[in-house]
């Protein structure tokens, strides 16, 4: 029951955050100087087009009505988050649904890369403190953090699509799992670096705790001590870092999708930016905000499952 109360409080908090984000977007749009129709249509548009667009954007209605309609667009499923200005027959939601799976696949791939690299590296370094191995892991993870995906992406393409033509060159024809490998690496390596660095510190602190000695004294094998006890306790800071990273993964996806010429939410956002398709832009931002908040919620729930010592505040 306490768990349920905690969850519902967190959920309400998350919804308030989403509401704040979309309200800020709406307000910024409102506060911009100049006529939005100029920006969308260009200065040479006819008066008739302008009037039509003003009606579509509901600029002929008072502020409060516009805000209410904007919120209803997002909340009411049938409204599909508003209609695209460029493809009036399509709702923004349908375009997002189409782009969604590609971005999810990329994010999952990146997460897989990050965790499968970070956990073994952190374990290796933490169990050999102040050795050469520890130092090498330190340098490698530092490089992982510092190398921008902006550069790593082109580097990987040159290495594995051009110099060693093992993987398909990015483009509209490159589909399927092989085409997902390099983008996942590009997006995941930075997160792997951060998780390795955090994991190394967290594991080393955990290994000094009395309950580790107690587990060893009970005659547990070293791998069991490491994985069942040390790693589990170290998961709390790791999950915090991972949760924060997942949110920036959504931002990084925009860059990665552009480097690899992949479809997805980031590409949709950029395309609707260049065509000034404001309803689609706002819908993308709202969906990304909701995802970020939801992920944060999942991380908070996961804490309690991983570490029974955490009290529900």
């Amino acid at each position, binding site marked *: 029951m306490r768990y349920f109360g905690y969850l519902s409080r967190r959920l309400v908090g998350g919804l308030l955050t989403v509401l704040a984000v979309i309200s800020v977007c709406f307000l910024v749009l409102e506060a911009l100087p100049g006529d939005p129709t100029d920006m969308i249509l260009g200065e040479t548009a006819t008066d008739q087009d302008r009037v039509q667009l003003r009606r579509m954007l509901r600029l002929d209605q008072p502020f409060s009505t516009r805000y209410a309609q904007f919120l209803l667009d997002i909340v009411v499923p049938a409204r599909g988050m508003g209609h695209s200005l460029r493809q009036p027959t399509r709702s923004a939601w349908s375009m997002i649904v189409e782009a969604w799976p590609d971005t999810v696949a990329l994010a999952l791939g990146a997460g897989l890369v990050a965790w499968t690299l970070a956990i073994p590296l952190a374990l290796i370094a933490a169990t050999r403190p102040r050795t050469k191995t520890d130092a090498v892991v330190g340098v490698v993870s530092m*490089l992982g953090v510092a190398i921008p995906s*902006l550069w790593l992406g082109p*580097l990987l393409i040159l290495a594995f699509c051009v110099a060693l033509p093992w993987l398909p060159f990015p483009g509209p024809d490159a589909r399927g799992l092989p085409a997902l490998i390099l983008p996942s690496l590009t997006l995941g390596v930075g997160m792997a670096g951060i998780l390795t660095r955090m994991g190394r510190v967290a594991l080393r602190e955990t290994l000094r705790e009395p309950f580790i000695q107690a587990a060893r004294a009970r005659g547990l094998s070293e791998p069991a001590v490491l994985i069942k006890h040390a790693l589990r306790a170290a998961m709390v800071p790791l999950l915090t870092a991972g949760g924060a990273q997942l949110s920036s993964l959504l931002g990084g996806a925009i860059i990665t999708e552009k480097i690899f010429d992949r479809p997805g939410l980031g590409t949709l956002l950029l395309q609707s*930016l260049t065509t000034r398709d404001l309803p689609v832009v706002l819908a993308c931002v709202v969906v990304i905000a909701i995802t970020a908040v939801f992920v944060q919620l999942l991380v908070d729930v996961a804490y309690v499952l991983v570490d029974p010592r955490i009290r529900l505040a």
Partner: protein
Amino acid sequence: MSASSQPHKRSRWRLEGRALVGVPMVLLFLFLALVGPWLAPYAPRAIDLAHELEGPSLRHWLGTADNGVDVLSVLLTGARTAGLVGVSTVLISFVLGSALGSISGYAGGRTDLILARVTDAVAAMPSLVINVALLALIARPGFGHMIAALSATGWVTYARVSRAEVLRLREREFVTAARALGASPSRVLLLHVLPNAMGPLIVQATFGLGGAVLAEASLSFLGLGPGAGASWGALLDQGTAYLLRAPRLAMIAGVAIAMTVLGFNLTGDWLRDALDPKESSD
């Protein structure tokens, strides 16, 4: 728990590997940001269609890009763009964030609750997405717009760090003493609390500079950079478009961005350990 099993004998400011590599990288970047545009042999937009996408030569040491633009000049002028955007963003974020964070921590109560909620809300969002959304709404983004957009998300970390520091220092004896002597809250905060909270904030600013340079490059890569001047991110954008014809472009821009970010990260790491041996990561 953080007590090290081995005594800490060496000097805090020992010049070790991280500092020896990181600090010169940072200094080189700051030097180029200051004088780069004057060292550039050509204007960063000088068009020379006869020599488009050529390899390195005596006339163009790093070759030419799209429209025959001299790559070395773009690199040198781009350092100014990155430096200007980076330093301004960090300055604004630092002042704004530490003001909000320390007020939040010192005042406590409802003020703290509201400010902390706002901070959490901004922190929960991917900052690049917010930056993109803000810049996208502007028809022709310039330097000021980009700095404003980056500061709109950048203040959050400084607010968190300064709030934590103020909470830590608030009940210390010297603060109580100052308050007992009748100092006003703003005087206590500015003269007694904040100077003692500077260490972690400066560390954060060092990482922040690397982050801001990367964010500028990312936004320019996405085509949202300031129209005037040259940018490493925009050069990288060209580089990915001409990856097969001129892989040089992506490599040059990428190395410049990566070295700068690495330099700030190494320096920040070293500073953190030097200023607070407790949290030493080795």
